[in-house]
């Protein structure tokens, strides 16, 4: 890694030198006893330099010095940069990278494409960005064609496609007391591809009927060409379907691909995944779209205006009181008790766990659901329904942290669908370590205790700071927390609080 540092230094000092054929000869002869010393003197590598400025001003490389030692003791040259490129300086470079996105302004849109993001925990999720990406495609691609047809020759840096473009309009349904657009969210929407932003207040808590009423109000005011929703069970997916039914449209649900299609009225056709996930349905793109995650690439190359569009709900848009549905609030669920098959983060213990109290403590602190190997269950440390494996539960956690589990075949079968596996084991040669993405060889109890102590104080601080900001779990609306990295700690907080109450 030090090679990379010294290379850049060396480039600055590269100057033409007088040639010395003898030294050059030694420099070419790797078997010469003075080879390395000469190389160093010539500034051509040696002493670990992998590349230097050659006499003709071209970079020279010593292939014997690039790359890193592979696991089997052979030198590997990894052009993907996965190994070498992960080093420090590059991260620094990306951080200071200049923002190269074009600014796009749609001053006079021909129409509106409405996007209702889920705003899980008040932020745009990946899924939301994908849907905005889809909206941009719908707004721009055909518009580009129309613009091309008009043979507009302006080679302007600013994409000025006014009059032919549709405005991607974000419809934000925010809980009524403080329904204002925060600047962070505004920036995020601008980067996600929103030309316009409409903020409508809705009743706090779970109020699908009120949200539907807000959408209907927007529909009357804007009559968008398309309504786009992210297909999440409780939020966009439900709202989109409700809106479609109310508007008498047949929505495209589970949409995952859109293609231009002149035969269809909307100019687009789409592919929708059926409910069972086994079939695709090809159909013209309807007005209401409930789109799956990764339905389109999120916007990366442009930045949009996200200009706030004043629209208010009249009182008649509010449904008659009392609300037919009443949100009684979130129910505290102990993560340790979440059904294993559902759990996103599992801490599993096996034969190598000696301190089970410490194990439970760590699970609590990390906000992980507890799992166990068959042996741990047989020994009576954990109940049977917590057993992971072919003979227990098949789990599909995002992260599976296995402590003291050597990895019997049955167990490995049970964690096949886990995305990432971390192993803590005293035996570096066991099958679990082979399967794991990260393994720490050592005493499981000690590492768990350390892990718990690392996370624990910070959780407390975090909660304190959040309460000061007034965004404690009580204040946050119980919206979809899917993509929130804060969730686990937030959960632990809730549990702690509920325990305090109890």
């Amino acid at each position, binding site marked *: 890694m030090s090679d990379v540092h010294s290379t850049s230094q060396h480039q600055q000092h590269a100057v033409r030198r007088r040639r010395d054929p003898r030294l050059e000869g030694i420099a070419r002869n790797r078997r010469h006893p003075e080879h390395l010393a000469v190389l160093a003197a010539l500034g051509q590598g040696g002493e670990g330099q992998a590349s230097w400025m050659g006499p003709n001003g071209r970079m020279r490389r010593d292939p014997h010095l690039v790359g890193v030692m592979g696991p089997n003791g052979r030198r590997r040259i990894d052009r993907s940069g996965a190994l070498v490129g992960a080093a420090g300086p590059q991260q620094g470079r990306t951080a200071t990278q200049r923002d190269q996105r074009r600014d796009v302004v749609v001053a006079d849109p021909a129409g509106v494409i409405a996007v209702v993001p889920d705003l899980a925990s008040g932020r745009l999720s990946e899924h939301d960005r994908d849907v905005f990406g889809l909206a941009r495609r719908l707004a721009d691609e055909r518009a580009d064609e129309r613009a091309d047809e008009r043979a507009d020759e302006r080679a302007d840096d600013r994409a000025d496609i006014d009059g032919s473009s549709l405005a991607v309009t974000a419809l934000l349904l925010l809980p009524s007391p403080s329904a204002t657009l925060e600047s962070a969210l505004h920036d995020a929407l601008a980067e996600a591809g929103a030309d316009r932003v409409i903020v409508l207040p809705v009743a706090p808590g779970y109020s699908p009927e009120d949200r539907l009423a807000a959408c209907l109000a927007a529909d009357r005011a804007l009559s968008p060409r398309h309504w786009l929703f992210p297909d999440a069970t409780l939020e966009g997916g439900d709202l989109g379907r409700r809106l479609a039914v109310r508007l008498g449209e047949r929505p495209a649900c589970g949409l995952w691909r859109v293609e231009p299609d002149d035969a269809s009225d909307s100019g687009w056709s789409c592919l929708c995944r059926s409910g069972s996930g086994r079939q695709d349905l090809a159909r013209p793109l309807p007005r209401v779209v409930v789109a799956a995650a990764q339905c389109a690439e999120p916007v990366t190359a442009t930045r949009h205006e996200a200009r706030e569009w004043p629209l208010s709900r009249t009182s008649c848009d509010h449904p008659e009181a009392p609300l037919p549905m009443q949100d009684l609030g979130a129910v505290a669920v102990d993560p340790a008790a979440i059904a294993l098959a559902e759990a996103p983060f599992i801490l599993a213990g096996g034969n190598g766990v000696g301190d089970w109290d410490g194990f439970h403590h760590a699970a609590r602190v990390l906000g992980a659901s507890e799992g166990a190997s*068959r*042996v741990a269950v*047989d020994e009576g440390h954990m109940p*049977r329904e917590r057993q992971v494996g072919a*003979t227990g539960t098949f789990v599909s956690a995002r992260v599976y942290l296995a402590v003291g589990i050597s990895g019997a075949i*049955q167990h490995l079968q049970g964690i096949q669908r886990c995305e990432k596996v971390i192993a803590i084991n005293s035996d570096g040669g066991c099958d679990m370590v082979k399967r794991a993405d990260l393994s720490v060889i050592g005493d499981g109890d000690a590492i768990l205790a350390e892990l718990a102590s690392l996370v624990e104080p910070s959780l407390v601080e975090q909660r304190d700071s959040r309460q000061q900001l007034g965004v404690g779990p009580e204040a946050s609306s119980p919206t979809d927390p899917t993509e929130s990295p804060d969730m686990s700690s937030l959960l632990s907080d809730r549990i702690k609080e509920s325990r305090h109450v109890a």
Partner: protein
Amino acid sequence: MSATLFYGSLTGLVLAALLLALVGAARRFLLWRRGRPSPVAWLGGLAAMPRRYLVDLHHVVARDKAFAHTHVATAGGFVAAAGLLLLVTLAPLPAGGEMVLTGLMLVMSLVMLGGARRVARRRRRPPSRLSRGPWQRLPRSLTVFAASVAGLSLIMLMVTWLPAAWLTGVLGGTLALVLLAGLALGLGEMFLGMTWGGPMKHAFAGALHLAWHRRAERFSTRQSDRDGVSPRSTGLKPLDLDDPDAPLGVETSEDFTWNQRLGFDACVQCGRCEAVCPAFAAGQPLNPKKLIQDMVLGMTGGSDAGFHGSPYPGKPLGEHRGQPGGPMVVTSGGALVDADTLWSCTTCRACVEECPMMIEHVDAIVDMRRHLTLEHGATPGKGAAVLDNLIATDNPGGFAPDSRMHWAADLNLPLMRELGQVDVLLWLGDGAFDMRNQRTLRALVKILRASQVDFAVLGDEERDSGDVARRLGDEATFQRLARDNVATLSRYGFQTIVTCDPHSFHVLGNEYAAFGGHYCVRHHSTFLDELLQQGRLKIAPRPRSRVTYHDPCYLGRYNGEFDAPRRVLAALGIELTEMARSGFRSRCCGGGGGAPVTDIPGERRIPDMRMADVAEVEADVVAVGCPQCTAMLEGVVDRQAEVRDIAELVAEALVLEESVSEASSTATGARRRPRQTGHPGRLVEEASQ
């Protein structure tokens, strides 16, 4: 007491006891007959009964030599003495004949007395498997009866010579009275107790059970002796699913067939089943002896507080009671048997094998399981998921049926579909989906190829044999799988089915007959033994460290194959170190009967105990012949011994001779399509080098 009074009271006593016993017998018989009908050979059964008693039953009893002698003395003495007593007292006999018979009666009762004393000695500190309560009283009753009959015969012999006044005298009178009272007591236990529900019930019910057994085919006959076969009947009996009124399994005791009910009454509570039951040893809530006694309570009603043996582990006595016509198992408690008792059974048949009264515990357990699964949908643990998988994918793991051959993608196994007619059909079993068992299957394929066996597999056409479904009580799914498999097999021609899964072996060989499938099935150990004996398999014997062999239940006890695997191992140059429990007494691995699926908690795990057996003989390798056993034994933590299938051991010692390989490639090459260049191709290369 005058002689007339003496004789009169003696006759009266015997006659009364006999009559009362007959009344009791009739009542008991009618009680049994409340069960479902089951056709039996009434007279033929009675005629066969002595042979079944003296040969088959004694074969089991004689495993405990000392007690066998005791039982012969006691039971033989009793039968003879009681018969003579009836003759002497009730039949009109000439005086001389009567003297001879009385003398004989004296001898017999003394023999019985000797036996009774040995019974009493055993009862002084009885092992925990024996029931106490009335059973502790039995040796005393036997002694009293034998002594009274002996004394009375002595008196009857002596009256002829002694002056008549002797009997009327105080001493003689008292003695006669005491003896008569003793006889009354003895008759009460021996005659009345036999048919009214005392410990001696086992003799009466046991005798009739032998005569009218539900599996008459399990007893030896002269013919079977001549053929040198030991008959077995281990396949479960099918349910009639076409009749919508036929009960699906057993809900109340009356749903058992009448001779099953008779069998329950035959139980002598010797506890041999309890001593060998793996679930009981593991502290799971099952005790086969208690289960049979609970079945009796199901017939007669009453609380199980009257049971004097070991309870189900973890379930105190007195909390359950039976009621004629009432449910045997209620999922929400309060009935006779808890469901987890039934689901603890591994169907290893150790209890049936040990039972001197030939009671069929496993049949009763599966009958009740059938009711739970088919009527209540109450298969515990992962049972429901396994059954759903079997219904939807034909394998218990829920794998895609067309991925059954993925393990053999590189082996180019010949498919039945393409060949149509072969010598050997290799039945893979569901082990084809299990990574561990795939090693065994590969070894077996290597051996078959090396010995030029003309074989093929069904490939994706194979389904689960239905073993697990049937033991879990899902007879409907079993029958569907069986019919489908039989239909598939009927399309092809083959001489033998070879499988390395004893469960498939048992089901294909013994349980498919009811669905029209009659096959010659061989376990791979048997088949390898045959190959070795025919000299078709070249192996280089090499001595190994200490090896022991674990008999799979479904190979050994179910199908009587104990020797072939041992011969194969011997041919490999292995000198077996036998475990204490091996052969027909082999301890189950815990993997049968769906037990790993239902997973009833106990204090220990059955495979752990089995590996402890292995450790006891300090073996480094335990040879097995069953994928279930392999999985269970390999799942033991910190095991000292390696678990190897016989096929793997043979494959290791295999000698691939050049001529053999050449021959095999040409012999099989004719059948092969040209694109196949897997294993045989490699052999050709080796040969040409």
